[in-house]
């Protein structure tokens, strides 16, 4: 596995010692909160509604069993025995005490991890598909390119004071699992006439003004990547608005200037700087690619898998729902659902973390991933080992067969934890999952992504949920706005607002009306919710959602 070395041991030790001293000075009163706040935020420490929160970085969502075990130990020792996996592919602890945080950071550093948050208006974290290096449908592992971009952009002198933060996502596959159209720049590895290159997408983003990224270049030869990115960022650096924080992201720059104008400027700039790139970047890429080399896949007979699949209905249901095709013969990608019905989406106990770590070590080439859908992935498991993996997951309450289904809900922490929230998200998610589990309709309904945010910052990606739910405060009461038809995948789309919002206790019946309408309207069992929605549009769903309005209008 790639040994992610953004920060070496000595650097982390020094940085932690520094923060320990800062915490001491804060506790003694030598530092005021105004002075301390930026320091703690840089070290991943937030103050939420009921307690501090520590956000631990997991680059590319990739970690090994030793790291997962330390995450479990931290949960036991300094938190309440669990951690929360987020859509940012990291883990958050909801209950640390200020005095303990330096010890938590030291424990993280013992396995090369940290909570350092890139901050400021720079090129932020580069993210990649959580199935990277494993997916059968990928042209190439996107992580080496992501890592190349990260190394190139870190400390790039020209880009330390951009108008706003800047996020890049890379996928190596047609099936976008990295939501590249919701990033400032999205890159998709493509092949054209046998040559490898990128589709370059620009100007996506969620939050206050959601926008789907647009194709700036449909084919960019691989070797042109860094000069082209540099051209985009420097055009943005010049044109991006610095007068208004809410209008400063590149999505607004593209929107206000027009895609064609941006493209012309980028191409002009690109032609100018291309000669400065002499291929050093491509040598770097080769080296990084070697570091990300695939594990030594084994070959083994599949009898145990076939036998279990035929004989054990629970195993079969889980295999049908939670496995994805692997690029190596005989292998599968296992998605471990952290969405047991009625539980908090993304929360895993320390015991569950240890079980997942053990499984990765025993059966999974010691690799785990955190997906932005708040699940944990074992990217490389041979099918012959799946019955054992499934049995261990079942014993740990981790075998819920619901990946991609209605109860596999993304929910941000909302007002149960987050100080910025306008309403809660978690109980809505819990109730939807419990409700549809009780109806035993989940598998019949099929693929359906529900995403919930507790405020307009959209951490729960509600705009790209097939059903999106946004919690708001309407005159001192929690109120939920529903959007339909959003999609974060290849044909990304922002959901349409269905109409007036719903009180908390009206949300579940509202979702049920939408789902029942879908079951009624679909052409056959194979037509997914999203396909039906795209075929018929908002109207029939709106009619189902607001039956009273129909009556009144009649």
């Amino acid at each position, binding site marked *: 596995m790639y040994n992610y070395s953004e920060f070496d041991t000595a650097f982390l030790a020094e940085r932690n010692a520094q923060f320990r001293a800062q915490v001491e000075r*804060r*506790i*003694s*009163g030598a530092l*005021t*909160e105004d002075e301390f706040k930026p320091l703690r935020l840089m070290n991943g420490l937030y*103050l*939420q*509604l*009921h*307690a*501090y929160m520590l956000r631990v970085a997991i680059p590319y969502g990739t970690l090994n069993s030793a790291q997962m075990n330390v995450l479990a130990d931290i949960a036991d020792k300094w938190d*309440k025995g669990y951690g929360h996996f987020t859509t940012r592919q990291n883990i958050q602890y*909801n*209950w*640390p*005490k*200020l*005095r303990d945080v330096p010890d938590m950071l030291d424990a993280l550093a013992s396995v090369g991890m940290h909570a350092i948050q890139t901050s400021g208006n720079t090129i932020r974290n580069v993210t990649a598909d959580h199935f990277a290096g494993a997916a059968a449908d990928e042209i190439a592992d996107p992580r080496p390119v992501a890592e190349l971009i990260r190394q190139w952009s870190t400390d790039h002198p020209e880009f330390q004071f951009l108008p706003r933060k800047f996020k890049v996502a890379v996928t190596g596959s047609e099936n976008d699992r990295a939501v590249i159209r919701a990033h400032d720049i999205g890159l998709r590895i493509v092949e054209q006439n046998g040559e490898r290159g990128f589709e370059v997408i620009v100007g996506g983003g969620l939050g206050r003004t959601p926008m789907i990224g647009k194709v700036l270049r449909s084919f960019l030869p691989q070797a042109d990547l860094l000069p082209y990115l540099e051209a985009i960022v420097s055009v943005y650096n010049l044109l991006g608005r610095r007068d208004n924080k809410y209008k400063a992201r590149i999505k607004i720059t593209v929107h206000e200037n027009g895609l064609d104008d941006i493209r012309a400027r980028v191409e002009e700039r690109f032609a100018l700087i291309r000669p400065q790139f002499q291929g050093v970047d491509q040598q770097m890429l080769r080296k990084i690619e070697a570091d990300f080399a695939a594990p030594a896949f084994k070959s083994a007979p599949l009898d145990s898998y076939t036998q279990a699949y035929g004989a054990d209905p629970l195993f079969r249901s889980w295999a049908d729902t939670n496995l994805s095709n692997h690029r190596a013969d005989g292998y599968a990608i296992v998605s471990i659902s952290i969405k047991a019905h009625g539980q*908090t989406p993304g*929360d895993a106990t320390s015991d569950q973390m240890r079980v997942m770590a053990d499984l990765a070590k025993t059966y999974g080439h010691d690799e785990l991933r955190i997906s932005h859908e708040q699940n944990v992935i074992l990217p490389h498991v041979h099918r012959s080992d799946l019955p054992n993996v499934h049995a261990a997951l079942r014993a740990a309450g981790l075998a819920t067969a619901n990946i991609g289904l209605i109860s596999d809900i993304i929910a941000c922490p909302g*007002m*149960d*934890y987050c100080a910025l*929230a306008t309403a*809660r998200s*978690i*109980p809505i998610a*819990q109730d939807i999952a419990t409700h549809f589990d009780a109806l035993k309709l989940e598998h019949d309904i099929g693929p359906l992504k529900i995403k919930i945010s507790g405020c307009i910052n959209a951490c729960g990606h509600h705009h790209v949920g097939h059903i999106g739910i946004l919690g708001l*405060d309407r005159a*001192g*009461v*929690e109120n939920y706005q529903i959007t339909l038809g959003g999609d974060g995948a290849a044909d990304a789309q922002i959901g349409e607002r269905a109409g007036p919002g719903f009180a908390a206790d009206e949300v579940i019946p509202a979702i049920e009306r939408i789902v029942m309408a879908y079951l009624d309207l679909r052409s056959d069992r194979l037509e997914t919710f999203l396909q039906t929605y795209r075929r018929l549009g908002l109207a029939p769903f709106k009619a189902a959602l607001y039956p009273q309005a129909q009556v009144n209008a009649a």
Partner: protein
Amino acid sequence: MAKPFSAKVVTANDLLEGDVIYQTADGWTRDLAQAEVLTDEADADIRLIDASQQHSRVVGAYLADIANINGTPSPVHFREDFRATGPSNYRHGKQETQQDV
């Protein structure tokens, strides 16, 4: 005409524990019911300034509206209700140690 002043408490987060605290006449409490109810605007402003200066004890002090029921404060807005209780997905936070009623 000026809006009538609605009753308030001074609330903040504890520096070390991070949890929600409320100002009393002579210190701080973790229990909203024990908080000092402020019914006079000028008085409330002074109490807030006093709280905000306690750098080594509290973070982010502000005035929260409360309903003053016979001198016992209770939350008006749902956000303050959650702050006074804890999250709804686990019995963590204040409710962990509070008696069932």
